[in-house]
């Protein structure tokens, strides 16, 4: 299988395709259970409202990380190998919200081990409001016969 994207096809300033997703109660509960997060604010409406003081159950952070990972690798294809993700939580995402994930490439580089990297700023927003920010670093093949997943030890510098 050839890479979907190689480093020479990426430049700083590139925008990633926008992902829109309608969040439902199922999205929130499935996401919480898939990450083994049993805390009630992610499945119990009454608890979320009375104890957390929010309007409904809300997406948990590990599931948001999974959304960002999916978004990144939708763009890179399976040869893209995430090296680092930094999430900054600002506000909650609730059932009924339309989640909009966007991304912009901020830098492209090849490290001393020859690995190609794209630095990407991602944002998960509802309407005009940013809910979670994510700075990601993803390894992308430098040529059609390169595979970042084959890198180990000193050849992998995330």
């Amino acid at each position, binding site marked *: 299988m050839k890479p979907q994207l190689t480093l020479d096809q990426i430049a700083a300033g590139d925008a990633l395709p926008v992902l829109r997703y309608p969040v439902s109660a199922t999205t929130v509960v499935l996401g919480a259970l898939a990450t083994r997060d*049993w805390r009630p604010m992610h499945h119990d409406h009454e608890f979320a409202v009375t104890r957390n003081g929010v309007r409904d159950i809300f997406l948990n952070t590990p599931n948001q990380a999974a959304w960002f990972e999916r978004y990144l690798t939708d763009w890179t294809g399976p040869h893209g190998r995430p090296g680092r993700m930094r999430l900054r939580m600002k506000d909650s995402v609730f059932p009924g919200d339309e989640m909009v994930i966007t991304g912009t490439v901020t830098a492209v580089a090849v490290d001393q081990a020859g690995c190609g990297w794209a630095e990407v700023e991602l944002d998960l927003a509802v309407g005009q409001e940013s809910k979670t920010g994510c700075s990601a670093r993803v390894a992308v093949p430098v040529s059609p016969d390169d595979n970042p997943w084959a890198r*180990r030890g000193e050849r992998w510098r995330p």
Partner: protein
Amino acid sequence: MSDELPEDVITLIDQTVHEETADFPVERGYVWTACASVENGNPLYWDETAAAEITGGPIAPLSMLSTWFRPHHWAPGRDEPKLPLQVHFDLKKRLNLPEAIIAEFTTVFHEPVRPGDVLTTCQRLRSVSPVKRTKLGRGRFWTIDVEYRNVRGELCGVESYTGFGYNREEAAA
């Protein structure tokens, strides 16, 4: 709240604590549930041929690293729920800060996790800030690293959590 950090908390900084082995091996059923939850169609998780060619066999999504350590909701003989990120809860209790949030977290990914792996983990408190006042209340920020390794001792990833423990009643007006 005293500005002085207790001596036992200072001593805890950079110490390796809560070394644990996962309750269960990494398994593909959970991988598929996790992929379904975010509609992740990456062939690495669904196509045996692609996984064999690109990653040398099936792997788990990298963001699932901490999933493999979240305790069962119940287990025989356990009187109290086991907590993930125990140092975070230890600090809340020791510093008498009943409320806490995780404001930010970073994960650095190394060796991918594979079905059948039984991971081990440990936690390290990296820093605790002086007392700060935020819109949430008065408290302290702390950073905790959680390291994950496979049975071969290879580093699979490190998560760094920045938490803020606080007293709501001392919130700024």
